[in-house]
């Protein structure tokens, strides 16, 4: 059975169950019924509203997951498939679990605020959802991803005497930029609230500093321009091309291009330890430089194969 067919049947079945179960038990339930508990029941909704809300909440999750399956490339990879299956089954079991425990607590009560929800029952619903999600993830992750060929050979490039060759390319990440703007906006908003005394006790000056630093860090890690010339390799960060990091050609042993994803190198932005640095903006083509010291630098950038070819040609010419 294909994932899509299972997803469709599963989603429809759960939607039907979520609508049908409260309606089928209508004679034994109070109306309105208790829908939220703190220490005792403290929230309620009419039976119809309850059935519609739970079904709607599930439908939204389900439609989003189906859309991901139809349009996204998230399921091409094993980790993506595992997360998709775990979300589909786990969220479904959680919704049904919440609904069933709610109905159970309300069963044969006359008024909503007499309903009692045993703590273990709520816990059981969560544990069941986690277990089902984990199992679905394990079953659904499928075949392992093919290992990307390490050190793909760049096309050979011959530089003639009197030729000047340069390579300029860039990679940017709108997602990193948007996330840092959103994060900074939230923190700065909190700072304003703290300054006005609406958020008492919050140190507004610290919040301003954190927000500004976050914004700057996001700006600088949202784009990178790589330039290869006779003078070496230069990495310029951020939308304004500053700061710049220069690497001398004499330090470089060789270069190549690789296909890499953020999930393979530990996420977006600057990562790694000395000797294995990564500058990851987006999934796809990356330029890899290996130093004579044995260390390497990976930077995601468009048209990396041409860049690697030029680095190798320049290193060769310098050595000759």
């Amino acid at each position: 059975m294909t994932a899509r067919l299972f997803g469709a049947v599963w989603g429809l079945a759960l939607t039907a169950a979520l609508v049908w179960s409260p309606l089928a038990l209508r004679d034994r339930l109070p109306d309105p019924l208790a829908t939220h508990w703190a220490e005792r029941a403290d929230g309620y909704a009419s039976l119809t509203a309850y059935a519609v809300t739970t079904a709607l909440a599930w439908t939204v999750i389900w439609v989003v997951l189906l859309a991901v399956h139809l349009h996204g490339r998230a399921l091409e990879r094993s980790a993506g498939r595992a997360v998709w299956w775990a979300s589909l089954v786990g969220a479904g079991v959680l919704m049904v679990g919440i609904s069933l425990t709610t109905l159970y607590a309300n069963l044969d009560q006359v008024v909503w605020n007499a309903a009692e929800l045993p703590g273990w029952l709520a816990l059981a619903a969560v544990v069941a959802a986690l277990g089902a999600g984990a199992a679905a993830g394990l079953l659904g992750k499928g075949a392992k991803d093919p290992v990307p060929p390490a050190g793909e050979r760049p096309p050979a490039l011959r530089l003639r005497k009197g030729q000047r060759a340069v390579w300029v390319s860039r990679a940017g990440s709108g997602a990193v930029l948007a996330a840092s703007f959103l994060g900074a906006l939230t923190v700065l908003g909190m700072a304003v609230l703290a300054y006005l005394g609406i958020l008492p006790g919050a140190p507004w000056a610290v919040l301003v500093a954190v927000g500004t630093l976050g914004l700057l860090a996001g700006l600088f890690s949202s784009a990178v321009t790589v330039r290869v010339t006779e003078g070496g390799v230069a990495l310029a960060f951020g939308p304004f091309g500053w700061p710049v990091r220069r690497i001398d050609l004499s330090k470089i042993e060789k270069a190549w291009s690789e296909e890499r994803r953020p999930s393979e190198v530990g996420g977006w932005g600057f990562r790694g330890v000395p000797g294995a640095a990564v500058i990851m903006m987006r999934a796809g083509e990356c330029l890899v430089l290996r130093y004579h010291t044995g260390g390497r630098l990976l930077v995601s950038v468009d048209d990396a194969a041409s860049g690697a070819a030029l680095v190798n040609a320049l290193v060769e010419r310098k050595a000759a």
Partner: protein
Amino acid sequence: MLITLDLNDAHPLHEQVAGAIRRAIGDGSYGQGDRLPPARDLAEALGINVNTVLRALRELRDEGLLEFRRGRGVSVASRADGHALLVQRTRELLEEARRYGYRRDDLIKILEALP
């Protein structure tokens, strides 16, 4: 974007830059809709005047290879592909033919004689 200039070449620099960009589009390094690096960056790396690079970019825009868009910079036009490579190769072929003393008409005759 890989750009090679030949300092001994008699051709003007803007033609050489245009040729290098045509080649990058033709060999698939840059596909339809891909954004080119800013002209300022290219000029700085090449050590030439930014106006020379801009002139090359404008030529390619007039050929229909590039699109200029406000705020999006310069990108490869949506209908540019193998045509760019063919034009570039033919141009180089024509130059080589001239070096051997053949004219455009001779080259056309050679092409027509081919199966």
